């Protein structure tokens, strides 16, 4: 009887501690809201990129994001690599890919005149990186109220739960709750990192999630016309561009996972054989 009571008391204490621990993040000030799950095709060990989605995502980046955000580490040729948005099995290689060449040719990049050596602008080739919208970081900051828009090349790796984070941030802008003082030129987003405590005049126990972001809500319904007829809702565009950035952050992710299966299969077989050898060698040796 006493023992049962003791045990249930112990359980109650454990439960209380557990609840306390579980409740901590929800109440802590300065937390961003956990990203929503977009259910991306590339998640999990078997996931692969959806090429149509990557193409739509590239279009959103090209028509919306690239006005302010650079992707310095991404080259046009990467778009035509295996698993990339414009991969063409018939192309000799990524640089010969006709889609890639056409996409690159839409841009002009600084070069020199090969005859005179004078600075000129020339059409980009598959070997060029995505051009930067600003000549340098200072110009980028000056054009954006002092905060340079971050480079998006590896953004999905540079944030926790990157793809879902980008999707949630882009589609998650909200009216600031009453009681939250917003600085001029800033916007409230519950998924942005930050601490709202100094700006909050409401109940100190319920400081809103999230932070301020200098980027105005970049997407509105129908902003992009998708070539495959997909409806360009904010949610859809956010999802597609998040998928594109996830791909750009790690173009070899699918190759990595597929290699992993071969490696694991090999290692498991090797482990089995080695264990059998181990049993055989040690047979009859007491140890």
């Amino acid at each position, binding site marked *: 009887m006493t023992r049962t009571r003791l045990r249930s008391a112990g359980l109650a204490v454990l439960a209380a501690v557990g609840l*306390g621990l579980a*409740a901590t993040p929800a109440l802590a000030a300065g937390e961003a809201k956990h990203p929503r799950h977009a259910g991306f095709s590339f998640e999990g060990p078997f996931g692969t990129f959806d090429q149509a989605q990557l193409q739509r995502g590239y279009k959103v980046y090209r028509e919306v994001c690239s006005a302010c955000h650079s992707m310095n580490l991404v080259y046009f040729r990467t778009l035509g690599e295996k698993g990339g948005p414009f991969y063409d099995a018939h192309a000799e290689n990524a640089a010969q890919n006709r889609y890639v060449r056409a996409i690159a040719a839409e841009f002009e990049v600084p070069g020199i005149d090969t005859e005179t050596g004078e600075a000129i602008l020339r059409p980009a080739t598959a070997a060029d990186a995505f051009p930067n919208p600003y000549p340098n970081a200072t110009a980028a900051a000056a054009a954006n109220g002092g905060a340079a828009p971050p480079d998006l090349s590896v953004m999905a*790796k*540079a944030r926790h739960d990157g793809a879902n984070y980008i999707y949630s941030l882009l589609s998650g802008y909200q009216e600031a709750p009453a009681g939250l003082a917003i600085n001029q030129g800033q916007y409230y987003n519950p998924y942005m*990192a930050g601490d709202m405590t100094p700006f909050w005049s409401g109940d100190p126990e319920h400081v809103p999630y999230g932070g301020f972001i200098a980027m105005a809500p970049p997407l509105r319904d129908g902003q992009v016309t998708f070539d495959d007829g997909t409806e360009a809702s904010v949610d859809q565009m956010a999802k597609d561009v998040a998928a594109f950035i996830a791909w750009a952050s790690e*173009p070899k992710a699918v190759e990595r996972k597929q290699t*992993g299966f071969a490696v694991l299969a090999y290692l498991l077989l090797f*482990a089995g054989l080695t264990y059998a050898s181990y049993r055989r060698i*040690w047979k009859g040796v*007491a140890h």
Partner: protein
Amino acid sequence: MSDHESTYVPKTGVEKWLDTRLPIVRFGADYMSLPTPKNLNYWYTFGGILALCLMIQIVTGIVLAMHYVPNTAMAFESVERIMRDVNGGWLVRYVHANGASMFFIAVYLHMLRGLYYGSYKAPREMIWIVGCVIFFLMIATAFLGYVLPWGQMSFWGAEVITNLIGAVPVVGEPILIWLRGGPSIDNATLNRFFSLHYLLPFVIAGCVVLHLWALHHAGQNNPVGILIPKDRQAKDTVPFHPYYTVKDGFAIILFLIMFAYFVFFNPNALGHADNYIPANPLVTPAHIVPEWYMLPFYAILRAIPDKFGGVVAMFGAIAVLFVIPWLDTSKVRSMRYRPQMRTFFLIFLVVCFGLGWCGGQLPDAHVIGDFDTFILIDGDLNSYLWLTRLLTAYYFIFFLVLMPLVGLREKPLPIPASISEPVLSPRIPDAAETPKAV
């Protein structure tokens, strides 16, 4: 075991010629036939696993160095270039980056095994001390390597850690400038860190040779913790090959399976997302944390309110390991026969995990729930600050107080006369034997 007779007989003319001039084949053959206690369990496989880890890090590191550019303007981009454009570069880099974590998982288990079975006690003090040197070099190498990708955590980690040197009175400041190659962390720092990161693994490899030399001279410890008497050599030992090559081999493959899981399916799980943001000296990350394997020491550093005191405590936490052979007063090696010490050891294990956990938390954050208790000196009692202090105190008490005291006062269980006995007749209690020096 050191005086193990060589059984190698050169067969061909070339072997005979070589054997009288440079007996390198004999060296290898003797190594393979080394009599090894036959009761070594899987905790003893981490030595082999660590040798493999070192080789993997050196080989992948040499390849990475062919493509990496140690320049603040290009380092970050060159790492991403390896990930995107170098053939198999993503694999080499992920193996190297996760390899560091795997190396530390293995070394911590290896050290805990040594601690549990008393592998540091006479006549094996030098094996342990050289091992501590290797561990210290590993920490230094890992820290230097983490700076190279030149991400935000690289830069700010280097900032925090080099600043610690500045806390040393009088000489701290000049050493700090010398170490950084200037008044702040910049290109000169990155260049020398790259150079040292390439150098230290070879110093580690040299120490590994000493570690093995000492090991084969003093003979391997075993879970029972007794020296094998001369007349029981034949009964209680087996040749290293094939018995332990196959056992170590099996363990290595299991380890590689875990390694492969991280490399191929979760390669960034053990790193910090902020390190994919290029280093920016003007923007401090919200929360600077070292890699997981440094967290216990980072926690100890932050537990002490005084900066220099924190540095002393952090280095002290490593330095204390060197003198363990003389702190432990027990005559019995293996904790199998030391029930009291085993309890303290298990608490120590929990404390180490606890310190690691604390190292990743904000010191002011509450441990339980979201309520204040009362301010004790400089922080709320319900905070990671005080939990860390409690755990830090136990860490040092374990080595400096419990080890000497428990060794003198405990009554160990009877230890068997040879390692075969508890193995061959596990249920028959050994004739009550008083603990004796072995």
